[in-house]
Every structure is written in structure tokens, then in C-alpha cells.
């Protein structure tokens, strides 16, 4: 992945910035519009990213709005239930996402999880289109296993920006360094035991045995998101925060 440049809405991407393609097809990511035959325009402001391997380009817009797409892992909060479905909120002020009451591992009409209004679930987006309500599920529909999805008990949820959530979920590269540049979770995990679930919709759920450790992890994540710490700054902040506990 390479090359970022800041663009404004309505700017045309010059052909020199487009990644080379093998079959002549380009994949356009979010916030780009194609006018045939060969004009590509931006629709929001942000930085342009290209991926030469996949022949893809997209605009990284730090606007803080999460748009559901199929396959995303999200932390959803149940708002209310109706017959056979729970209505869950992924982000405030948007339409509810539908979670079927049987969309859990090993659930059938006789045994189904009893979830109340306000409970949290870790789910995967099943379908997302602009015309219909978003549907989410708490198990892998092809294998029938949970794979870590399902209700989240205890702990606390912290709000982060969707861009930071994406960085947290990027994984590690070959040398074991985090690709998104965030080392908070690994470093704190060496000293404190906790569970964490990162939702692409800008929510992260943290549960440790005690309140202090949960709060420390959550505040470190929120601080890293808001202030944009580099790896060294993150290590320094982690040390200052964990010192009073040991």
C-alpha cells in the first residue's frame, strides 16, 4: 500500500496516480465515483490510498461515520426485541440493525439466548445495502460455529473513531509488528490479563477482572486515538499508566 495525497470533493484522479492493472479493471473503494469512460472523481475530502497488488484505490475519509459493509465485525447494543429479531444499534442516529434470535451457535426454537435491552453482542455483518436494513449474525453461517462471536458479558465499551478501529484490526506483519502502528494491546497484555473485542463501528469492549485495569486499557486506547501517539509515545504512556498498579 502506498501513496497518500489529500483530495477535495469533485477532484479528478489523474491517470498517473492510478495503480497499474493486469486485466484492465480497477476496484473502486468508498467515496469514489466513476463517470464513463475513464473519469474517476472524488465525492468527499480525504487522503487517497492505492493498493497496487489488488489494483484498488479508495479515499480514507476521517469523518468518523461508520458505514456497514458485509463481513465487518461490530460491537452492537440491543435496543429492543420484536418477534424473532433483535433490533440493535451499531451507531447512534442510524437505523437499527436486525439480529435474528436464532442467529447464534446452536440455537433452535427451544433453546435461544435470552438477551435484554442494553446487552452487547459481538457480531458479523451479514448483509448491508442502502435499500434495506442491515442484518447481523452472531455465528458463522457456513460452519455453524461462533468463532468468538456472541453476547459480551461484563466489561465496558469505549468509543473510538472507525479509522482507529480499522488500524486495531489490521493484524501484524511478518516480523510481528502491528501493521496499524498500535502496540497498546500487546504491551498492556504482557502485564495485565484482559479480554478485548474491537468493533469496526467505532466501539471497543474491554473486560478485565477489576475496574482499574479495564479503565486503564480503555483510556489508553481512547488517548491513542484522539492524540495520535506514535509507537514510542504509546510505550511511554503505557509505562506511566501501569506504574501505579505494580
Amino acid at each position, binding site marked *: 500500500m502506498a501513496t497518500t495525497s*489529500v483530495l477535495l470533493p*469533485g477532484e479528478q484522479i489523474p491517470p498517473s496516480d492510478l495503480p497499474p492493472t493486469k486485466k484492465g479493471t480497477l476496484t473502486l473503494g468508498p467515496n469514489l*465515483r466513476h463517470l464513463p469512460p475513464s473519469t474517476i472523481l472524488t465525492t468527499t475530502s480525504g487522503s487517497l490510498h492505492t493498493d497496487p497488488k489488488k489494483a484498488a484505490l479508495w479515499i480514507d475519509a*476521517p469523518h468518523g*461515520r461508520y458505514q456497514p459493509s458485509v463481513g465487518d465485525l461490530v460491537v452492537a447494543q440491543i435496543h429492543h426485541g420484536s418477534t424473532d429479531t433483535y433490533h440493535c444499534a451499531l451507531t447512534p442516529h442510524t437505523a437499527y440493525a436486525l439480529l435474528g434470535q436464532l442467529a447464534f451457535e446452536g440455537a433452535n426454537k427451544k433453546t435461544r439466548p435470552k438477551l435484554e435491552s442494553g446487552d452487547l453482542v459481538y457480531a458479523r455483518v451479514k448483509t448491508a445495502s442502502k435499500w434495506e436494513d442491515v442484518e447481523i449474525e452472531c455465528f458463522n453461517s457456513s460452519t455453524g460455529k461462533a468463532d468468538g462471536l456472541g453476547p459480551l458479558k461484563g466489561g465496558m465499551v469505549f468509543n473510538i473513531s472507525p479509522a482507529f478501529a480499522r488500524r486495531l484490526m489490521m493484524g501484524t506483519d511478518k516480523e510481528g509488528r502491528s501493521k*496499524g502502528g498500535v502496540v497498546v494491546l500487546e504491551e498492556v497484555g504482557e502485564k495485565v490479563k484482559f479480554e478485548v473485542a474491537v468493533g469496526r463501528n467505532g466501539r471497543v469492549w474491554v473486560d478485565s477482572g477489576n475496574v482499574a485495569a479495564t479503565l486503564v486499557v480503555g483510556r489508553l486506547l481512547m488517548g491513542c486515538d484522539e*492524540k495520535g501517539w506514535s509507537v514510542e509515545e504509546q510505550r511511554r504512556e503505557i509505562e506511566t499508566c501501569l506504574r501505579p498498579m505494580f
Partner: protein
Amino acid sequence: MQADRRRINAPAGGTAAPVFTFTGNEDLLQRPTRTRKADEHRKIFLRTKVVPSASGSAYYEIPPAKSTSSNGNLVPAASNLKITCTVHGPRPLPRNAAFSPNLLLSTHVKFAPFATRQRRGYIRDASERDLGVHLETALRGVIIGERWPKSGCEVVITVLEGEEDGWWGDQQQGSEKSGGWGMMSVLAGCITVASAALIDAGIDCVDMVSGGTAALVRNPESKTEEVVLDPSPPEHEIKAACVVAYLQSRDEITEMWMKGEVGEGTEFLTDQAVKSAMMTRTVLVEAVKEGLEVEGAVESFNGAPKAAKGKGKDVDMTD
């Protein structure tokens, strides 16, 4: 306007306190004159992200001109423009609303009661609703609505200080509540600030729209008429004025409002208003880029975003 029965309103009247001065203080009674060139715009301050709880927001101000008189009287020679805009959305429409395949845009423009020399009411009156319709026309041409079916977007504009229709020293005939020349500068400012707020909210736009004004003014001594950009009504005797909302990359006008008698110079007046819109677009570009820097779009993962404190750099307004 229907009477506002829910509130106990302040006495209707002026919003500026009376100033008592010695007779013979001629400085106070000087009509302000335009010190800039005919195609020069006043400096504009535009910043985004002023309201953290809204999807997008922006603040637009034309700062007060430095007073040329040295006796430091408190009465400003001309009013200035202060507009704030918040954008909420895209939000799902209520369940009982009709199906709409495109984003439903609703604009609300409101003058604060203290915004003009004559105190305004708390309920929107006809001129504010008219401004809202003009603004909606300007913005509708630039938003890509088909990405957001069954959703609505609300643009709320509050004018904290509006431009006057004329110099306060003249006898003001007719109330300010009807659309005077000041409303046209207000509309141009509203278009620019709404555009900045929409981009801040991340709503898909075809281009950046900016508002510009031009006026045909009459010089009383030389009895000639000329076209000036960004008119300040107290400084001129305005015969006709035009406001446009202009998309520069596509060379399109989404909204045009013209008032007064122009005769054959209609096209020239429109062209000059387009030139004014191109100049305000440079300010809009800088404000949007500064907003992006604050959010950290312009850095690698290890760098820290620059904090938006202190003053930004001044931008030359060129077309």
C-alpha cells in the same frame, strides 16, 4: 408574522445602545467608504468542526474592518457577518414518512434576535424561509442524494450578525425584515459555510460549492456606475445585485438570485458574481484542508496530527 404567544418578548426596537456624542463630532457621521478595489473581497474567516456533537459544522465570519477614525468611538461603521452552520445526518427518516429514493435535504436559516439593528423575533419569518429555500436550491445541485435512500439531512444555519441593508445614518425607509441588499451577502455566506459543513460531515458531493456576490453601484459624485465584488451595503448606493452559487470544477451555477434594475448588463453582473465565488472558494479549500490536518488524514501512522491552535495562514483570494 403571527404573534409569538409562547414567550414574553423583549420590547421591539433597536439592538444597538444609543450613543450620546457632542454635536460637531463629524467623524461619527461619515458614511463609510470602500477602501478596497472593485474586485477585491473582504477577508473571510472560515473554520470547520466547531460543534463536536454534530455530524459536521462550520463558522464563517467577515471580521470588522479597521476603523480609520482615531477617536475610538464604539459605534462600528458597518456591521459584519457572522454565520454558524451545523449539519445533522444522514439520519433515517421517521417511520411514517413517505419513501424517498434520495437524501431529503432540509435547510433552516434563522437570524438571532440580536443579529440586526432592528430586533427580530424568535419564530422564522418569511425572509428567513426565503433564504432557506435559496440555500436548499444551491445545495441540492451539489449533493449526491442517491447514496442515501430513506434518509434525511438537516442543515441548520444561525446568523449571529447579519449585514445591514444600508448605512444607519441614513433614514431607513421600509423595515429590514424584507429582503434588502444585506440579505444577499448573507446568502452568499450561508452557501459557503453550508458547503464547508457538508464536507466536514462527509456527505458525498459532486464538487465544492461557494457563494459570491456582485453589485452594480452608482457613484454619487461622478454619476457613473460600476460593478463591484463583495458589496458592503453601507458603503455604496446599490442599484442591482446578484448572488450565485458556483461549482468551479464543473463550471456550473446551482443557484442565482438577482435583484434590481440591470438592463443589458445582466450577464456581466453574473460573471462578476461568479468571479467573487471563485475567490471565496480559495478560502473554502484552505478551511477544508486545515480541518483534514487536524483529523490526521495527512500523516503516516506514526506521526501526530497537528493541533489546530493559533492562527492559520492567510490565503490570497485569487480566481
